[in-house]
């Protein structure tokens, strides 16, 4: 395997990890505040559709992105309404959102575009273009550093950089600000927050809202960055992989980056090496493509160390007497 191949794999790792990273951070905000969210998948899917649909009809990827965020936030607020205001079961609400998104996206897509539940292909301003960082071409001939800068670091779409910058920002927000302290507290012991005179409900809604925005970005990137248009079920379990990454990351932002990069790497390898020959045995392509999902199962089964979720996670807050 030569240097360029490695670079190409890593390059596609970053691109494939980006939607996972957004979704993982989305889950992180929600779960750190005590709201479990298995509806990441559904929100991402709905966002992907609306990004594709609005970008196609308006010709502007930015309007598409806003539509994606709006769709995802609406689903988030439904989840919030069910699990915060009405103190419903968070898992059931999340499952409902996943079903809702899976069905509605295809239905609306068929109604609007009549292409079998997909949006037409996007091109030009309806997609996120890759951003060439300054000096990328100038530096390219420089050995080692040049290709790394030009291939790996430069040349991604806007949202990839937003995703990467979200990691330190999330860390800073959670661990260095008053908002972060309260957000973490409300996921650990809402009674402590309540008796301190802060509204548990308001904090949790804010968390769910942030989760919606980030899922919106994840979905927008899927249909307007990674690919050119929406196709049925295009989130392909990424919401669940993001949840696994979140557990793997022990609900910490930097670990979330590493975990999603690992999943991205597995996906990149699967795409690059369709058939791997080990001696006379050929590893089938299906196995390679299943790798990220196998890792998900392994992580969720608890083989990777002890991960302690936020202690009040999944529990609606009821004021005690």
């Amino acid at each position, binding site marked *: 395997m030569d240097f360029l191949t490695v670079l190409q794999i890593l390059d596609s790792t970053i691109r494939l990890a980006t939607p996972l990273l957004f979704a993982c951070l989305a889950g992180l905000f929600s779960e750190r505040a005590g709201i479990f969210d298995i509806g990441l998948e559904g929100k991402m899917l709905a966002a992907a559709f609306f990004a594709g649909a609005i970008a196609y009809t308006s010709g502007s990827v930015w309007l598409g992105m806003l539509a994606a965020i709006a769709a995802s936030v609406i689903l988030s607020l439904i989840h919030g309404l069910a699990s915060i205001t009405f103190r419903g079961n968070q898992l059931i609400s999340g499952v409902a959102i996943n079903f809702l998104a899976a069905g509605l996206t295809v239905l609306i897509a068929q109604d609007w575009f009549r292409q079998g539940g997909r949006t037409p292909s996007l091109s030009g301003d309806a997609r996120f273009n890759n951003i060439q960082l300054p000096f990328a071409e100038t530096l390219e001939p420089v050995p080692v550093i040049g290709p790394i800068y030009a291939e790996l670091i430069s040349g991604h779409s806007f949202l990839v950089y937003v995703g990467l910058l979200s990691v330190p920002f999330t860390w800073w927000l959670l661990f*260095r*600000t*008053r*908002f*972060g*302290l*309260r957000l*973490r*507290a409300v996921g*650990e*012991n809402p*009674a*402590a*927050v*309540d*008796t*301190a*005179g*802060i509204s548990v409900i308001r904090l949790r809604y804010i968390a769910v809202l942030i989760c919606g925005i980030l899922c919106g970005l994840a979905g927008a990137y899927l249909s307007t960055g990674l690919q050119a248009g929406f196709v049925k079920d295009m989130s392909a379990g990424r919401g669940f992989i993001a949840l696994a990454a979140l557990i793997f990351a022990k609900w910490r932002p930097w670990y979330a980056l590493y975990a999603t990069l690992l999943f991205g790497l597995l996906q990149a390898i699967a795409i690059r090496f369709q058939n791997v020959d080990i001696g006379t045995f050929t590893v089938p392509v299906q196995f390679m493509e299943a790798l990220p999902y196998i890792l998900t199962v392994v992580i969720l089964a608890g083989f990777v160390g002890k991960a302690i979720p936020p*202690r009040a996670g999944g529990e609606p807050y009821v*004021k005690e*007497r």
Partner: protein
Amino acid sequence: MTPESQTGRPDRAALSASAPAIELKGISKAFGPVQANKDISISVKRGSIHGIIGENGAGKSTLMSILYGFYKADTGQILIGGQETEIPDSQAAIAAGIGMVFQHFKLVENFTVLENVILGAEDGAMLQPSIAKARELLTQLAQEYELNVDPDALIENLSVGHQQRVEILKALYRQADILILDEPTGVLTPAEADHLFRILRGLRDEGKTIVLITHKLREIMDVTDTVSVMRRGEMVATVNTDETSPEELAELMVGRKVLLRVDKAPAQPGDSVLEIADLRVTDEKGVDRVKGVSLNVRAGEILGIAGVAGNGQSELMQVLGGMRTGSGTIRVNGAPIDLSGARANGQARRELGIAHVPEDRQREGLIMEYFAWENVAFGYHHQEKYQRNRWLMDNRALRADTEAKMEKFDIRPPLPWTQAKSFSGGNQQKIVVAREMESDPDLLLVGQPTRGVDIGAIEFIHQQIVALRDQGKAILLVSVELDEIMSLSDRIAVMFDGQIMGERSPTETNEKELGLLMAGMTGDA
């Protein structure tokens, strides 16, 4: 000593010094048909420790919740420092200078002390300035009031006594002038409780007003200046502590004469029922908990094991109850019982005639989600009398049985279809006691029978234990309440660091001697 006010609220110190710190006028609060507080009026003097005593369900906590903004009173006025004050939520209570230390601490377990102290009272959007300010204040308070806690320790690594200090520090950080403590000593060791009282006296001497809610008479007598007694939602009396007695307060609380001492005839011990020889227990972490204990209990006597919590009493009881394994020999009615094999379980123990009222009723004694009638039979449910046929249980028989036990043990409400978690602490304990005593055991193991149980129920449970003894049963009692050990036991064994330090007769010893033994000092040879 308090940091400068940054909230811009009125300077309370400037208010008339003679005005009471808290004055409640005609407070009433009903939950549906239940009148939790009826026309309550009290006045608490600034710079005093005021006790509020009453049985569970007397309305103490409701009253304090009204003061802290959890509930709004249906009628009545609240005056803080002589000014009428509306307290619609906790924020308003904090702004009025009220701090509350709850019975169950409201701390974030995996946050540091500092983070917990500033939570909700941060000065700005960034944490660092508040953390620095809190660190400085904590150092200052630690020196002034013996309130020392490591500011960077995680709450989950602190003892309950230290966690409680964090709660007090939280209130002081919010510049509380009035500190309300709800059952503060329920979880503390005697030494920790003494330390707490020293802190409270120090705060009082600085001019803070302390309200102490408790059902423990001894604490009221020890630490308060004035005391109010509540009964069934009403304030029945407010007296100066040095002009009253525990007996008078108990009578006011319960509404009838209460025997604080247990009335019992001398024991008529029979044959030896339980013989323990060289029992050793090692816990999950490999720590030796019980180090060669030998004891025996005869029919018709109560052997009380005194000791500070955590000296191996729990493990001893757990081995006897079949909840834990150990080595050594234990004989019941002369036959050795299995300590580490397949027969070392609760079911096998029950078959041997050993009944067990475990120390932690909520975790080991009851299934909180189950109904009373399920809990009352649990562990004995396979008995012949509860079976309808080979496959089905006779739930009607179970419920009839439950009703009978509820009547006999005065369990309230006497409704079999009530979940265990909906009963008060005292009634939960009565359910466990009823189940175990009515199983007609040869040996009854009783751990902390009256922890968190109010005074009327304590009297009742004590009477039942003595009555069982008088039927010729052997009883092994473990309690951290020395009063309870002294008044119930026919013999007292003191346990320290996994060993029996000595045995005494309750009539020939005193609390001082037992206290020394509990601290590991044998004194004589």
